[in-house]
């Protein structure tokens, strides 16, 4: 059977040139080995070409200008238009370093970037959360703790007495935002969880979550209009 399996394969025409085949075992063959040419083994030509490439990058990055953070963020390569810019681009071309140096320079995150959680408020300043427990149920990391309490408002009935998110446990999956039926929790703040020195400080309480805002603390209220901003999303379909 083994020989049959072997015979299934047609002898390939490519591959090393066979000079002689053993009569005892056809698998044992003498082949012509292709050695690299003298030019390749001397390494000089390749070294010269390689040095040319690295030298070009080195000179361009050393003497060139960095793109601005804005240009780096947008992936723009400015094209010289005026005569002065053209002359400058000869002396000091735009270099190829893509690094954005983080604490001083910041990359602009995409619109759908999932950042630090925030809790939204109603028009009257009450927290939008109705303590329905959807988000702690869906949370794969079990990082959300809600203790509900009753409210006087008969239309709402429940609200969270305690709403805590352990940012150390959070895996930033965004399922809580998907699960929330009343747009109470969002991850659109565009910032990261703050570094902390003690684990307890990483737990965001309700007040802290309400204070987080989209525009990085400038406007500390996070009010979501009842029914959403603008026309009803159900219309226009």
């Amino acid at each position, binding site marked *: 059977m083994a020989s049959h399996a072997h015979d299934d394969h047609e002898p390939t025409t490519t591959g090393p040139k066979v000079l002689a085949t053993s009569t005892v075992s056809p698998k044992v063959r003498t082949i012509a080995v292709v050695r690299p040419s003298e030019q390749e*083994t001397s*390494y000089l030509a390749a070294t010269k070409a390689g040095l040319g490439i*690295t030298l070009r*990058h*080195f000179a361009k*990055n050393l003497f060139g200008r960095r793109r601005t953070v804005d240009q780096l963020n947008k992936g723009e390569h400015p094209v010289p238009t005026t005569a002065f810019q053209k002359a400058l681009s000869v002396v000091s071309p735009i270099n*190829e*370093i893509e*690094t954005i140096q983080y604490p001083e320079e910041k990359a602009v995150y995409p619109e759908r970037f999932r950042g630090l959680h925030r809790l939204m408020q109603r028009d009257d300043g009450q927290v939008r959360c109705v303590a329905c427990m959807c988000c702690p149920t869906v949370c794969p990391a079990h990082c959300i703790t809600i203790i509900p309490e009753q409210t006087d408002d008969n239309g709402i009935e429940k609200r969270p007495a305690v709403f805590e998110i352990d940012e150390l446990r959070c895996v930033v999956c965004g399922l809580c935002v998907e699960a929330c039926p009343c747009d109470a929790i969002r991850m659109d703040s565009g910032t990261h969880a703050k570094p902390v020195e003690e684990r307890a400080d990483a737990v965001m309480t309700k007040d802290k979550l309400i204070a987080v805002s989209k525009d990085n603390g400038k406007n500390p209220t996070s009010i979501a209009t009842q029914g959403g901003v603008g026309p009803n999303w159900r219309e226009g379909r």
Partner: protein
Amino acid sequence: MDWLSNNIYAILDNPALKWLLLVMVMVMPLASLLTWAERRQSAMMQDRLGPNRANIGPIKLKGILHFIADAVKMISKEDFIPGSVHRGLFALAPILAIAPVLIAFAIIPFGPTIYPHSYTSTLDVLALATDPAAKPFTDSIRLQVASFDYGLLFYFAVLSVANYGGVVAGWASYNKWALLGGLRSSSQMMSYEVAMGLSLMGCFLLVGSLEPGFIVGNGVSAQMSGSNPLNWLWLWQFPALILFMTAAIAETKRAPFDIPEGEPEIIGYFVEYSGMRWGLFFLAEFIEIVFISAVIATVFFGGWQVPFLDADGFRIGGYVTEINHQWVSTGGWVLKLPHAAVTAMQLGAFGLKVILIAWFQLMIRWTLPRFRADQLMNLGWKVLLPCALGWTMLTALFKLCAIYLGWL
């Protein structure tokens, strides 16, 4: 104080002091800076920024301070010695690696001879050659620690001791990978030392001396001034330059010849070392870069010579005459300069040449991938060695013809 002021030049001419000055002022800072330069340069070559953040308060200096941070880190790290190592050899190995390189700097002429009494005036070269014992030429300080007749042979001899550093480290570590690294190190060093020595034979033949000071001072031909770039060996011994450079880079155990170390994966002979003991191996490597640069600058690029700058100033045209068995360039159009300015420029030129050649070595290191062990051996024994031998024979033939035709 009288004694000091009377003997100040004798003290300055002390070889030990000159060596200390050379090592502490030029070699060690340059080698330490190379640790930063290498990372920064490789980053620039690979479109990165490299280390640029180490700072003392607001002072950043483009990250130059990283080498201080590294030194502080390595010195303050735990000096860990595994239980099974041979303690004596384990401690000896880093010293074996670094000491010979520092000793070898003794033969490098890092500057011209200084005549302190004629420092503010232009040096009268003719009077110097006629009567070297005259007042303005006494108390001369030769900026070369030791000038042996066997010159560069001393370098080959001493640097081969440095190879024991790797082998001993591998053996003393009681670790199979370290031992294999040590073996790779010894096999590579042995193969390349032969080619390295032979590649310089043509230079020795052409100049007629092994003494680096003589090579720098006189150049190839006595009929041209030593400061003429055409008189330096790079032009006449260009194949030797390439051969020597290749072998010398292999000698520094750096990419593309870094199979003794292979930091990322195959693990080298210093795998059991940590802290400053490892730092010594690391530093020895960078000092070797500086040393190789110094040797290449000395032998091939005229050492401390500034193009067309003779001892009394810039000279265009002119000719060389023999006075008291010394070749002195005279005549021509001369821009006379004080002795202080000339020596300062020549010292600066040596530093600049060393830095440029070190930069080129880093370029090579970050351009080429590592050789496989068999490629390494093939290159060493089958390419470099025959080429060096052939080039030596060609040079000898050339010299024979030149003597026969009366050129030299």
